[in-house]
């Protein structure tokens, strides 16, 4: 055998950062290899957003009145974008918990790789699928008549917010994925995501909800995201006045929520991965 151990380089902050980036990219590359190995599950995952558009658009669309008038499917699309964004939590919990239970995390921990690369790699990997599903959903939306009618810049800003929130939520998933004792528990946790999505302004206007429920729904970060998308895409359902602050200032609220989640969950996840005495 000719291969020798990596000579241990002097660890300056710059080399550390370089290793962290390189190792993180290897883990993102792993995601691409996985997708290439399982094209079937990739296709299934991508059909899901399109099915959602049709299902919700035509089933709910036949019954729900949009406040201030307008097409329900145009009202719905920002909500569906938010729902697909929230699924990031689930995806990352399962991904991370799977690596923990299969011993891969311990192998990573025992290797001379960057310590921060693993959580960063997992969250960045989630963006790969995340961007694809947002793109598919946008195409499906365009097919059923949804338009981003407030200019290209605003549309891009809307997608930017979706990506930002998705990334923030993936760190929430990363943290809980490291914390849950096993994969079964991870799968049970994911059941909680559905009610959180529905308890928002994503599918129905919150005006009709009982006061306390409306309060929760309006402070739900997904409501801010949905409202921000409606505003930036120029979609119906943005009603001014008499709402909670996040719904009245949705773009600022979405950025604040995302930054807040990142500030809390990035250090928590990184520390949880590096903690030795589990």
């Amino acid at each position, binding site marked *: *055998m000719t*291969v*020798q*151990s*990596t000579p*241990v380089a002097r*660890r300056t902050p710059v080399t550390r950062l370089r*290793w962290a980036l*390189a*190792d993180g990219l*290897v883990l993102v*590359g*792993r995601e691409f*290899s*996985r997708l290439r*190995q*399982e094209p079937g599950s990739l296709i299934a995952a991508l059909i899901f957003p399109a099915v959602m558009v049709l299902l919700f658009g035509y089933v709910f669309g036949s019954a729900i009145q949009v406040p201030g008038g307008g097409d329900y499917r145009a009202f719905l699309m920002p909500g569906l974008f938010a729902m697909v964004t929230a699924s990031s939590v689930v995806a990352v919990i399962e991904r991370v918990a799977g690596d923990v*239970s*299969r*011993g*891969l995390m*311990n*192998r*990573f*921990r*025992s*290797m*001379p*790789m960057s310590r921060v690369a693993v959580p960063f790699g997992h969250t960045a990997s989630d963006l790969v699928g995340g961007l694809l599903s947002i793109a598919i959903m946008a195409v499906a939306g365009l097919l059923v008549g949804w338009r981003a009618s407030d200019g290209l810049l605003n549309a891009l800003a809307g997608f930017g917010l979706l990506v930002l929130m998705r990334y923030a939520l993936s760190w929430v998933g990363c943290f809980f994925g490291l914390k849950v004792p096993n994969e079964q528990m991870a799968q049970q946790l994911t059941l909680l995501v559905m009610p959180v999505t529905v308890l928002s302004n994503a599918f129905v206007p919150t005006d009709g909800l009982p006061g306390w429920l409306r309060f929760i729904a309006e402070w739900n970060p997904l409501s801010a995201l949905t409202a921000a998308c409606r505003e930036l895409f120029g979609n119906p359902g943005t009603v001014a006045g008499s709402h909670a602050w996040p719904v009245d200032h949705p773009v600022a609220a979405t950025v604040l929520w995302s930054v807040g989640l990142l500030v809390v969950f990035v250090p928590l996840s990184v520390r949880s991965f590096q903690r*030795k*005495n*589990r």
Partner: protein
Amino acid sequence: MAEPIVLAEGLHKHFGEVHALRGLDLAVPAGTVCGVLGPNGAGKTTAVNILSTLMDPDAGHARIAGLDVVRQADRVRSVIGLTGQYAAVDEKLTGRGNLRMFGRLHHLPRRQVIQRADELLERFDLMEAADRQVRGYSGGMRRRLDLVASLIVRPQVLFLDEPTTGLDPRSRGEIWDCVRELVADGTTVLLTTQYLDEADHLADDIAVVDGGRVIAEGTPDGLKSMIGDRFDVVVEDPGLLSQAAAVLHRLAGAEPTETGENSLSVPSANGAVRVAELVRELDRAGVAVADVSLRRPTLDEVFLRLTDRSAPTDTETDGDAPAGARAADRLKDHA
């Protein structure tokens, strides 16, 4: 004398109320295989986790190739390989894909990674399955891939935590062959196992761990000598087994164990009893003997003797009584 390549001194580790390690000492000379044996919960995996930098000890210290596992953990990681109890590979990737990923994470240049992955797949007989998803591998192939993944950069010390648990005998033999090849290349191996024949086949030295510390160590042969050779006696009439047992007890000074409906086993008391004498005494007692043989104890017998949970001094509450002292007492009893 050079410092042992793996050195642990007085390792302590507790998880809440459970004391996993209570002062574990271990020294493995470079280029040897050390088998760590112990019942479930003896602290084997905890010891491996500390030595491979996955955990920090509460007290005591350990060095791998002279590097402290706590203060120089990063450098330790570049000289060790770890293959744990699970096949820690990505099931969704191919065998080759896994090896390339781990190679990249070891910071090898891309070209070398590709070359090295192929070299290892070839050498460990995985080339045929190289481009299949690991999901479809047999248990033995997964373990082999898991082992190979620890070898991309040749480690100075390889930790194998129960590498063959749950494998069929053939796959186990294949893993053993891999380990022997590695040792021939100069890699030091620390192997935990619950299969004593595995330790017997592979290990140069064995450390028997119980209650979080090493209670006996030595070569497989040395450990067997500690409890001495044994007589196996087969009588013709199972009805006379108790008479035979009484004779053996009188001669050997120890209670024989029944190993079958007409067979007994008893320590030979280090040659104090001879076969001829034994046969004569049995004959005098009217017991017809079908077979008598003097043999080395199996490692199982050594292990059971050393870790005997039913020994009267070993109660759950006497946590502080030194397990080593207890085992030493038992050895003295049988010497």
